[in-house]
């Protein structure tokens, strides 16, 4: 068994945790798995197909995962940023979860592919990764890996959109919004969409139209992107989850760029970081909430 499997086995066997959330191999590539039996720890894998942000399984709205008991979750460095965001927002306590960090050499966008890393296949989130060592984790397993190829297509496209006229941008986004059917795969995949009752599900009043016409879809996606200002860790899971192929990361990347410019803040695994939108300080240099 590998270092990861041994550790998972030990944690389950000793009762330190009741479930290990990690990745397993399957008929169609790498996928998340919840292991509750120490004997199943040998199913755990980690390789470049493990793109999923497993921090999402710590999201409190996943009651059936909570019901499995105290978790250990296998996390790449980027995933720890999402864990840190959840901790900063008091979604759970640090000692309620065990983090098993894996040293990562980059992941591909498609977990069902062969995992070969190229500039095209590597996930955009791997660009300029600053968490090669998942510092937040309780345990860190695996060998240090070479830096992954850099897929700059996301930033390139954001720049392209920036260079468009407002009319051209509107045309681009209208075409995308017409594809959305409001499956909410984006929301459900997201680690930091933690609201018990999402704003779009609130009916008194009906803040956002629920019907999947372009107008309603614009409301939904723009508001979701804004609700993630300073919170999104840019893992790209929303875009990967979208069955309609909408390039949601263009929105999220742009919002986080604005947050970085305006508040000098980017997603971080630092538990003490002050979140620009979420945190209130008495000595805030703004004298109102915006």
């Amino acid at each position: 068994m590998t270092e990861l499997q041994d550790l998972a086995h030990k944690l389950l066997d000793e009762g330190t945790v009741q479930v290990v959330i990690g990745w397993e191999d399957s008929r169609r590539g790498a996928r998340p798995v919840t292991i509750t039996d120490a004997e199943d720890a040998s199913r755990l894998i980690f390789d470049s197909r493990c793109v999923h942000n497993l921090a999402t399984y710590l999201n409190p709205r996943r009651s059936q995962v909570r019901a499995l008991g105290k978790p250990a979750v296998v996390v790449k460095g980027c995933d720890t940023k999402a864990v840190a965001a959840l901790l900063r927002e008091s979604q759970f306590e640090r000692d309620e979860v065990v983090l098993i960090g894996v040293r990562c050499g980059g992941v591909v966008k498609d977990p069902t592919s062969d995992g070969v890393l190229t500039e095209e296949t590597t996930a955009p989130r791997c660009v300029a990764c600053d968490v090669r060592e998942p510092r937040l984790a309780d345990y860190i397993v695996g060998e240090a890996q070479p830096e992954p190829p850099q897929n700059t297509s996301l930033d390139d496209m954001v720049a392209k959109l920036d260079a468009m006229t407002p009319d051209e941008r509107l045309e681009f986004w209208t075409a995308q919004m017409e594809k959305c059917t409001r499956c909410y795969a984006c929301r459900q995949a997201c680690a930091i969409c933690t609201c018990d009752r999402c704003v779009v599900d609130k009916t008194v009043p009906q803040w956002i139209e629920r019907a999947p016409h372009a107008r309603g879809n614009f409301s939904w996606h723009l508001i979701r992107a804004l609700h993630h200002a300073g919170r999104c860790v840019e893992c790209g899971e929303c875009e990967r989850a979208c069955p309609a192929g909408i390039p949601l990361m263009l929105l999220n990347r742009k919002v986080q760029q604005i947050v970085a410019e305006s508040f000098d803040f980017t997603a971080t695994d630092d538990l003490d970081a002050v979140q620009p939108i979420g945190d209130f300080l008495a000595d805030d240099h703004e004298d109102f909430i915006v």
Partner: protein
Amino acid sequence: MSANAFISNEQLAGLVAAVVASGTRVIAPVTADDGTATYSPINSLAEATLNGALPNPSLKAHFLPPTETLMSWRQHGSDIEIGSPPDSFAPQLVLGARPCDAAAMDIVDSVMNWDYKDELWNARRDATTVISLACPGIDDSCFCTAVGLGPDSSRGADVLLVAVDDGYLAEFATERGAAFLADNAQFFSAAADTAVAQADESRAAARSAVEANLNVDTKRIEQWVGDHFDDEFWLTLGPRCNGCGACAFVCPTCHCFDIADEQSGVGTGVRRRSWDTCQSNVFTVHASGHNPRGDQNARYRQRINHKFYIYPSKFGDALCTGCGRCIRACPAGQDLVEILQTIDGMAANEQEGVA
């Protein structure tokens, strides 16, 4: 009624041109620059990519649109004036439907006419002639044969085309299909024996390819699922699931919907129905806050229940055509082929008296 005829590629282009010229909308799979496909209107055969990528959304979107107006109203003081939706739709032709998509519409017809007739669904069905194209099978997520269909099934199609050298063999599966042949006979000719043999061979090959993906007994799956509502097997599926609607919305047979009003102005508005999913955490929640399906274990169980036990027990068909879209779309790796395999295994063990 499967009179075999042949239509060459040129003749098919001519047929499409003629239908378009007559003012009838033609819908076909169209592949975009990024390689994705949709069922979209075309003006010529050249715009279509037959048997290219599997279109998303499925053909369902043309019969039960993601959102649809059920009625409109206008308020005059205390009075309300209601506007009805269309009684009928302009005739349209679908060319190159995947057999899994065509069969899905036929399967959903049952619930749409279950005592009460859903006029909008029926009107769109009545307006549409469906020409399917036999499929070679796509990948290892296809399992249409496992649910009693197949890559060359003509279920739900008026005409089934099978690709052969230089054109297609055409099988006229319904009365409407026969009428279509009669109206467009000039584009069709007699099928040569070689073409028929070639078609038979490719159909058999496609079926073998898909059969290799999954071979189960859906009757005993139905029995097992109906009998094992409380089985701990359901606890193994929920944890991985994100609880989104991706699987339901890409599915050609999922038809659950929500009804909601939308104000469109002062004193005017519409009542719409929009796609909804049993995977949503608010799907069954009561006004009191009580939720009969309060976690994803229960909700995922409902998905399997509805498709492989409830629908077959009421209407005789699984609510599934084995198209595999749910498997390909799921970001969390839920695999219906694997799930059905596992349930079939448990059902077989039970049948044989093995614990």
